């Protein structure tokens, strides 16, 4: 159950809990500041018509994140 996948590999519509960030680069800090933290529950709402970026729902807001960045976020599907 506690299997971890990349956010980018999550199925559309799936809920997951953020586990860790695979990089400590600055932009991930901005994602943290926008509420995406280890332990936060997020939902992958959809992929853009061209497959990238991804739309996620977190703490009541909708964010668009590029696949490149989503690959650095490890989540555990719920």
């Amino acid at each position, binding site marked *: 159950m506690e299997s971890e996948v990349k956010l980018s590999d999550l199925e559309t519509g799936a809920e997951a809990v953020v586990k860790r960030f695979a990089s400590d680069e*600055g932009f991930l800090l901005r994602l*943290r500041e926008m509420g995406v933290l*280890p332990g936060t529950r997020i939902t992958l709402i959809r992929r853009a*018509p061209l497959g990238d*970026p991804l739309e996620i729902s977190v*703490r009541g807001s909708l*964010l*668009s994140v590029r696949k*490149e*960045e989503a690959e650095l976020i490890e989540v555990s599907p719920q």
Partner: protein
Amino acid sequence: MSAGPSPSTSGAATTDVPAAAKVFALVGNPNCGKTTIFNALTGLRQKVGNYPGVTVERKEGTAFGQHGENFRLIDLPGAYSLSARSPDEAVLRDVLLGRRADTPKPDAVICVVDASNPERNLYLATQILELGIPTIIALNMIDVAESRDVVLDAKVLAAKLDAPVIPMQANARVGLIELKMAMTRDDLSASTYRTTIPSELEAALIKHVPALEKWDGETRRSHKWEALYLLGEHDPAHSGLSESERTRYRDARRKLEEGFSGWEETLVATRYDSIHAICKEAITHPHSDQPTLTDRLDSFLLHRFWGWATLLTVMTVLFSLIFSYADMPMGWIESGFEALSGWVRTVMPPGDLRDLITDGVIAGVGGVVIFLPQILILFFFIGLMEDTGYMARIAFIMDRLMSKVGLNGKSFIPLLSSYACAVPGIMAARTIESPKDRLITILVAPLTSCSARLPVYLLMIATLVPSEKVPVLTKVSFMLGLYVLGTLGVFVFAWLFNRFLLRGKSTPMILELPSYKAPTFKAILLHMWERTRIFIRRAGTIILGISILLWFLATYPKHESDDTGTQIEHSFAGRMGKTIEPAIRPLGYNWEMGVSLIASFAAREVFVSAMSVIYNVEDTGDEDLQPLRQRLLAANHHDGRPVFTPLVCLSVMVFYVFAMQCMSTVAVVKRETNSWRWPLFQFVYMTATAYLAALAVYQIGSRLGY
């Protein structure tokens, strides 16, 4: 513009407010309804300008308290955090910390919190509460929150945050009186709210941060952790620190990192923990699976098929409005200015002064005003799309395509608009937050084939394929080819600039997709009006100046001749044409075309009228290019060879695809980038490309025997 406050940003805004008026700053996340509150509080008493040195919009207005007191209200850029990551956020941070010489440190803050998304909004709000400035929390969009079954207890929230909390629905003016009453209160004091920092981290901060503060010049320090926000700076270029200060901050940052690895992440997590605890008590949020209106709209507007269909429809409507419907008012403006010139000709005696007024001043002012219909239509649409939330969806859909050349989805609208006219397109680039992406968009935007190139293309295609027997399709495919060439230019140069000119990491696009909202037309009209005013005032003066200069060059020195062609030949412009002739001969051009090239720097379509004047064609007024075409086809070099061979026509067209022959664009780029550096660079790179491309066409074509 780079030094000192510009006239519209300082002083002017405050003339009707006593110097002692209390200064309020309005802050909040993007899309929290901050602008609606600003408009409701200030009405039309607003001034819009730029913060000196950066292209961040500065808005200030006069607000009245509940008992008629005057307040200065500064609308600060929307931001997610005081740890700045863009010039906008750096301005917010610096104004609140009193670090900007051009803006007074606010006496109090109104912090807008989107009630439908409280946790994320409280992140910035709690940072601000800790600054020690008296703060009012405007809990906006309670209606949206209620529609999502989010129930907020303002009293509990106020007690927890130790600050007045005003529930509001700003677009319906709900809570406005309560907000004004709170602004009027004398006993507004700084909140005692503090995020509890883990003791280990606090120890590390206390060890390293004070060392920083000593270096901070004259200790303008207003807050214990001020240095922290400067420390968290990820793009030091925006922080307004001196080079030596920056080095010290970087050193301290490194030491702190060594002493407490992951301190920034820990701070963020700690803050969210505290917020989460507050929200648990103040907010009941029954988990609802009901899809919201935004969910339902998005499943259509971001649909694999319907998303594209909608985008295509919206763009088609926008385009046809800009291209065809703007034509009508543009025609009125044109004939209006022609009538004005005609009237001046009847009331003034002939002479240079009259010509200066008609050909220099009136033509120059007309050249500015002519853009207004397109600017107004474009900014109405942009305002509408931004206000409703659709703009972010366009960026979401287009991001993949734009990222291939290093741009992001937000560059799409400015670039697309540039096909009508680069001037409003470049102004629209303000919606791009990333400074690098914005600059690249501005630099490549004029490569799109704007409508001013059409007359040149039409004339040259008509000369190139004069026979009536040639199928229309041939002409159309030439035209299409020119548009494709320009578009390729956009992508190639965007890629090149991204790769070689503006290196450095691009900020990843983390985009918020705000909830859809009904547009407020007052705000959109206000926005249109601001854009228009800025264009007329800033770009207008430069355009007028260059018009007068060009008139002067074509008029002096005087040559006693009734023949305008001969007059031009002997004028400065004619001499310049002859001077550059050796340079343009390899492209297949003669000096007459050199003059037209110089004159059409005013605007590309001037090429056609300049050619008419030089080749002595009676001005037939409208689109009828036939007489001029005949003249061009009959024109010969001294040795009898025809001037306008198909190859020369092609060379001219290719030149106009790439050349930056437009002073309005230069003026607006200067205005939008705050310096002459970028418009000059742009002029040079585009002209060089145009020259080389036209040279290649003519030389290779000649070798091949055309």
